[in-house]
């Protein structure tokens, strides 16, 4: 029973999966090495032992096959929760996700539902080799029929996964892997709010930073550092990437007049572009500076020994804040 406990994100997800499987016999876990090994991050640790090989399924090494058969299982009435081992390995499944999973409900005029959750440990900062540190969320958010979310703390990890599994739509669940094994936060005792709602996690008046997943912590640090310089920064944890909760962002920007969006994914065609475009439209007369984006460069994720420079760390976020405040 996770609620009330303080757990690292990985354990919160493990506990959330366990709860979902206990509550609904149709919930299945599928993926490479999710069984005996408990996943390369141990997120599914112990679940096969307790729920059996029939519900925690070690699959052949083929991502398209995993998602394609998960679709079939969903059509049969199951609720598969698929684990993609690392962000960079989701692309062999991209066709099944984009062409089938996303569109099948619409194709059937609503007559069938596709309650499939795809868990992707994503983003960088763990010193890994190529393909293990990517942030591909924009490539899914652009596609209608999918929902995309990313929790930033243990409580959200626990509850948002519950909500994603209960949702009758396909949900891509982006897990900030660099935060998996930190100390973690206490799991709230009740659902902390709707799945697709952003949250103001620090109030402020001079500028808003919007972040999600792994960059939320950095955004908070930037707000703290700025506070020492007398700047009052509001921080939003966006939590949901498709849909984006523009209402909450709008409310904040109408107050602060300035917005910096921070994500690890490359800025070009990234989430920040969508936030900037829409918030500029909604808050044109409130904005005292253009919406600025701090994120990855238009480059392949670099080798580990350069990732610190590549990532939107505290200094780069503060630089963005400075630039926005300079208008």
């Amino acid at each position, binding site marked *: 029973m996770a609620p009330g406990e303080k757990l690292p994100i990985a354990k919160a997800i493990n506990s959330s999966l366990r709860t979902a499987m206990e509550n609904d016999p149709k919930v299945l876990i599928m993926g490479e090495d999710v069984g005996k090994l408990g996943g390369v991050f141990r997120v599914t640790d112990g679940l096969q032992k307790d729920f059996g090989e029939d519900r925690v399924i070690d699959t052949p090494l083929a991502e398209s096959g995993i998602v394609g058969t998960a679709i*079939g*299982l969903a059509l049969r009435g199951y609720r598969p929760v698929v684990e993609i081992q690392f962000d960079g390995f989701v692309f062999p499944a991209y066709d099944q996700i984009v062409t089938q999973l996303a569109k099948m409900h619409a194709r059937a005029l609503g007559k069938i539902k596709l309650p499939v959750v795809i868990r992707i440990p994503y983003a960088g900062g763990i010193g890994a080799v190529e393909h293990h540190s990517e942030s591909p969320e924009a490539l899914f958010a652009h596609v209608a029929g999918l929902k995309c979310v990313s929790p930033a703390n243990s409580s959200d990890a626990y509850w948002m996964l519950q909500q994603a599994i209960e949702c009758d739509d396909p949900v891509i669940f982006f897990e900030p892997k660099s935060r998996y094994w930190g100390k973690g936060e206490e799991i709230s005792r009740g659902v902390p709010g709707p799945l697709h709602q952003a949250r103001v996690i620090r109030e402020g008046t001079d500028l808003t930073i919007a972040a999600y997943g792994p960059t939320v912590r950095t955004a908070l640090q930037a707000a703290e550092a700025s506070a020492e310089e007398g700047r009052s920064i509001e921080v939003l944890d966006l939590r949901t990437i498709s849909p984006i909760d523009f209402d909450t962002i709008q409310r904040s920007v109408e107050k602060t007049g300035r917005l910096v969006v921070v994500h690890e994914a490359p800025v070009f065609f990234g989430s920040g572009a969508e936030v900037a475009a829409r918030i500029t439209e909604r808050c044109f007369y409130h904005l005292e500076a253009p919406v600025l984006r701090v994120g990855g460069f238009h480059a392949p994720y670099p080798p580990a020994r350069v990732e610190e420079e590549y990532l939107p760390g505290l200094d780069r976020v503060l630089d963005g804040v400075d630039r926005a405040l300079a208008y």
Partner: protein
Amino acid sequence: MTVESTARAKTPRSGVKRTATKTTKKAAAKKAPAKKATGAKAAAKKAAAKAPAGRPEPEMVQLLTPEGVRVEHPDYTIDIDADELRGLYRDMVLTRRFDAEATALQRQGELGLWPSLLGQEAAQIGSGRALRPDDYVFPTYREHGVAWCRGVDPAQLLGMFRGVNNGGWDPNSNNFHLYTIVIGSQALHATGYAMGVAKDGADTAVLAYFGDGATSQGDVAEAFTFSAVYNAPVVFFCQNNQWAISEPTERQTRVPLYQRAAGYGFPGIRVDGNDVLAVLAVTRAAVERARTGQGPMLIEAFTYRMGAHTTSDDPTRYRSDDERAAWEAKDPILRLRAYLENEQLADEAFLASIDEESDTMAKRVREAIRTMPDPPAMSMFDNIYADGHALVDEERAQYAAYAASFADTDEEGN
């Protein structure tokens, strides 16, 4: 040597060779090149003509020769009464008629496109009729005959080709999934569904249809792997109609397709796809295997796409009339008709009644399509999500306001 060479894989084995050779010889004995026949009877008696150029011709299961003569097969027999035989005939004739009507409707501008199944009726009716209601079918875009067997209203099949929806029938009301256009994808859905069947402990079988071209797609290979590893009750039914648009099967494989299965650990078999009895018998056996926990099987129905790939296609650019003519001699309907007539199982009255039923059905389809309404513009915002999505709501509202602004203009204009 331990190498499983191609040559060796092609050599027929033990009993197989004997029977196959026997059948083939029998057919061949009656063969002689012939000009395109006109009447049904003439065609049925016509020579079966030569095999497609350069293709190896391995053994295939046949129970009815192109001339309509029943032959036996050591492994596959069929227990079928006269009513059922007439039923198969009726299914094939009605399917062909429906298909022709759809082609005509496309020419008349009622449909944007039509993929004809002409020539593949036996493959589809034979396999479709091997199924129980609780079995589940995952089709491509050409399985009009299978849809017929599943009880899907033919008019419903036309919606997506008219451009009013992307399928739209409820897959669960007839256990017939939506047409799938992206080649090979549905093989995985079928496999997953079958994995679910196995988990449920049900004795349902799942049929995954795909074409010869589809066998090249990674998804089909992955479906083979998953189905074998989980011993899923799925039958892969490949209609090798010799062509993937303009590409002959040699562009996809250099050995017969049914042989693909063995390397994944389950049986593969080639059946004469223009012989409805053989297809029925082989599919029944495969479905029985699936039901009884023996896992997947691959059936290659060796058949021919008599028409264009779709109404947009021009096959004269890539294949010869001779080839078509040769296959016409193996027509699936004519051969069953010849058999029914020879065995005196169908009289003029019966045949006429089927033709009449066809006319009625075609008329009904024609009327249904002509009165099929266009979807309202606002429908483009429907059914994108089951549980809603704020952006869709926003865009729906914006579009409604935008559309309403025209209504105002129109009114003003009036």
